[in-house]
């Protein structure tokens, strides 16, 4: 399997959306604060469904939140 890395802009988008807390984002998308922490630290790559829910929470497209880069 080819090595790849998925970057995300969750932290930046949270602050651009009224300094939304990790807890608030977690509640919006139906996951725990620990999962938002893991996502921001790129320790966890979300399912496609969760990726879409996060994008919808910020009213942006999925590719505005997640970017794929070959490593």
């Amino acid at each position: 399997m080819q090595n790849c890395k998925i970057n995300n802009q969750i932290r930046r988008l949270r602050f651009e959306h009224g300094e939304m807390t990790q807890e608030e984002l977690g509640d919006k998308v139906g996951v725990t604060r620990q999962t938002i922490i893991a996502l921001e630290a790129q320790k966890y790559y979300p399912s496609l469904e969760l990726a879409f829910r996060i994008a919808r929470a910020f009213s942006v497209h999925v590719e505005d939140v997640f970017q794929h880069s070959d490593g």
Partner: protein
Amino acid sequence: MSRLEKHAWFNIAVFAAACVLFAIAYPRIGLLPATGCIGLCGLWGLTPRLFYPKGNLYAFLDEREQVIMRRSLQNGHAVFWALYFLSGMLAWTLHRGSDITIPADALIPLVVGSLIVVEVVRSISVLILSKTGLNHAEL
């Protein structure tokens, strides 16, 4: 700390208590009655399930925690089969050429002991995977 990690710590605490009780009881009342102490701890281990809908922890977990839960179960299974292999080979090696068989009384503690090890490994896996991270595509 997530609910899953708390549950894992609770499991480890239950098994530590079971080991301590067994170590105290075994010299006094013997092997089989001492396993009863482990059984009592098993009852204690069931108590958190009273607070889960239909006794199901999964209902409280999000997708990352479910992935961690599944991976930890896989680790527990792997350890069980490794123990199964090692204990079988050990018994065969020790008693090869003799007509000694494993006493029936030892079977229950062996099975209970194996399951305890599996559950402890599963709980430790949960704690490690929660800290180190896991990708959704890794299953």
